[in-house]
């Protein structure tokens, strides 16, 4: 569904992303992890059109989308969330989402947009009341709103920039479950960016690890978590906990299958 080839982004002399290639298959959840500044958000910004790649190709459903304007990429079926939620404070919660429903799906009809908004809000568990204000939302609520906006644009591929910092453990689990439900119930393929490894490893099908703008590992969560290079550059002291989580997840999956 998505094929990225030789993606490079240079800011002056600094290579934020250096020759990264990967593929995403229909229906999977790909985890994208790496320490702060490893290039995760830069890749997201290029996939969603906020930044133009210096070089490289991004094929989405067989069409080249590298360098297209953001609204054209959104309209072609990619939705995104921002790491720090960026709600529109002057609009109600509902209007935030119906705006995305209207413009994200080619401006067909207002009624359709409102329907899409209601479905998206129900999916993430926010009130569908037309006048509820954004000001009443806490950190978790704002993240849900961010997701609802992205879902309302009707994406085939969702780029979820979910730094779960600022949420407690329970909320993190909820957020992870929600992503899985979005994939299972709406059939949306997901790339999930995260820098905390534990929660992510339980949900994703595959993981890709970045460091200093380069891909250093890719594969099943358990394999990647056991990779020596990954442990060295990224996991550090967290390695044991993550390994255990990944092993547990794989065991569960085997039982499920």
């Amino acid at each position, binding site marked *: 569904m998505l094929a990225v080839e030789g993606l490079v982004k240079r800011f002056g002399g600094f290579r934020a992303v250096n020759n990264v290639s990967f593929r995403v298959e229909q229906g999977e959840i790909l985890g994208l992890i790496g320490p702060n500044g490893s290039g995760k958000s830069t890749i997201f910004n290029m996939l*969603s*059109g*906020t930044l133009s790649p210096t070089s490289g190709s991004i094929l989405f459903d067989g069409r080249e989308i590298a360098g297209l*304007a*953001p*609204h054209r990429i*959104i*309209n072609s079926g990619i939705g*995104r969330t*921002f790491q720090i939620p*960026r*709600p*529109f*404070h*002057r*609009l109600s*919660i509902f*209007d*935030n989402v*119906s*705006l*995305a429903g*209207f*413009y*994200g*799906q080619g*401006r067909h009809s*207002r009624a359709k*947009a409102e329907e899409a908004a209601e479905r998206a809000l129900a999916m993430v*568990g*926010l*009130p569908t*009341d037309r*006048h*509820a*204000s954004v*000001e*009443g*939302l*806490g950190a*978790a*609520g704002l993240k*849900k709103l961010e997701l609802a*906006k*992205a879902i309302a*644009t009707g994406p085939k591929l969702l780029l979820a920039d979910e730094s779960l910092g600022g949420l407690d453990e329970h909320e993190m689990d909820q957020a992870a479950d929600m992503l899985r439900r979005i994939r299972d119930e709406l059939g949306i393929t997901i790339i999930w960016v995260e820098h905390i490894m534990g929660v992510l490893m339980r949900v994703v099908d595959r993981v890709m690890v970045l460091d200093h703008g380069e891909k250093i590992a890719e594969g099943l969560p358990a394999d990647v978590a056991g990779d020596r290079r990954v442990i060295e550059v990224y996991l550090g002291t967290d390695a044991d906990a993550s390994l255990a989580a990944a092993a547990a997840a794989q065991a569960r999956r085997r039982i499920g299958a």
Partner: protein
Amino acid sequence: MNRQLAGWIIALIVLVAVPFVHRDPYHLHILVLILIWSFAYTSWSIMGRFGLVSLGHGGFMGIGAYVTALLWNHLGITPWIGIPLSMATAGVLALIVAYPCFRFRITGHYFVLVTLALSGIVLQVITATRDYTGGSLGYTPQRAPSGKGLIALQFDDKTTWYLIALTVWVVGLAVWRAIDRSMSRHAMEAISEDEDAAAAAGVNVTAEKLKITLISALMTALAGALYCQYQMFISPDTVSGIAVSLQMVFAAIVGGVYVALGPTVGAIITILLAEVLRISFGTKAVGWDNLVYGVLLVLFIIFLPKGILGSVIDLVKSPRKPPRGHEQQTVPIARR
């Protein structure tokens, strides 16, 4: 909602009836001026309310007035064609200036500066081509021979002008309202807060901003052309340049840019203020109104950013609003 509609219809009937009941030409003259300027201020607020503060609207107004008059005097083109042409000219100029601004993300103060330059340039062009435009001495459309008043869009009768100005003003309010109720308003609110986030919601940021700017510029040019046809005399100071642009910003902000009738309230206040100063102090007070505008503008931006009408509406409406109950409900729902 139906009561609101009934209110509008009654108000409109009363407004239409005014010139047939009250025939004082001076009062009618003031009313026509208020209506034309209200329309101009409403046009400004169509983009101004979304944080697109333009000081270039004096330029659009000047183009509306001068292009219409020049076409009539030099080529004999009737204002019925001249006005659309002048609007088109203003529209093209608006796109030429606005497109690079929006494409390359010139926003906030920098956008204001670019538009300020636009005003200045139009003013310079009018003064520099004084052989055609009369320069700073002003310009007068040629009187049409009697019987040809309709073709020339020249009427001696104040009642006719009052009805024309009233119609245009109502159309201006209708456009304001149509935009207010459209998805474009949501998109523009979103853009004014965060352009990247708006783009991520699928909004074509540049196109939406251009659309609003174009509508605003076309309407402002129409206001300039009407002013010219009514007054039969235009000068760079009265329909163009930075002073006129500032006057628009001032009136719209004082009245309130977030409500439909705000710019109209602004026009009533500014025009009455100028008239009162003129009548009570005569020539001794020339330019005083600008001083008062300046002081009031500072006070309003600090203490009443929603303008007079906006603040009054808030005051009247707030007791009926439930005390943020829905928000209190939202918090637990969102935390779940």
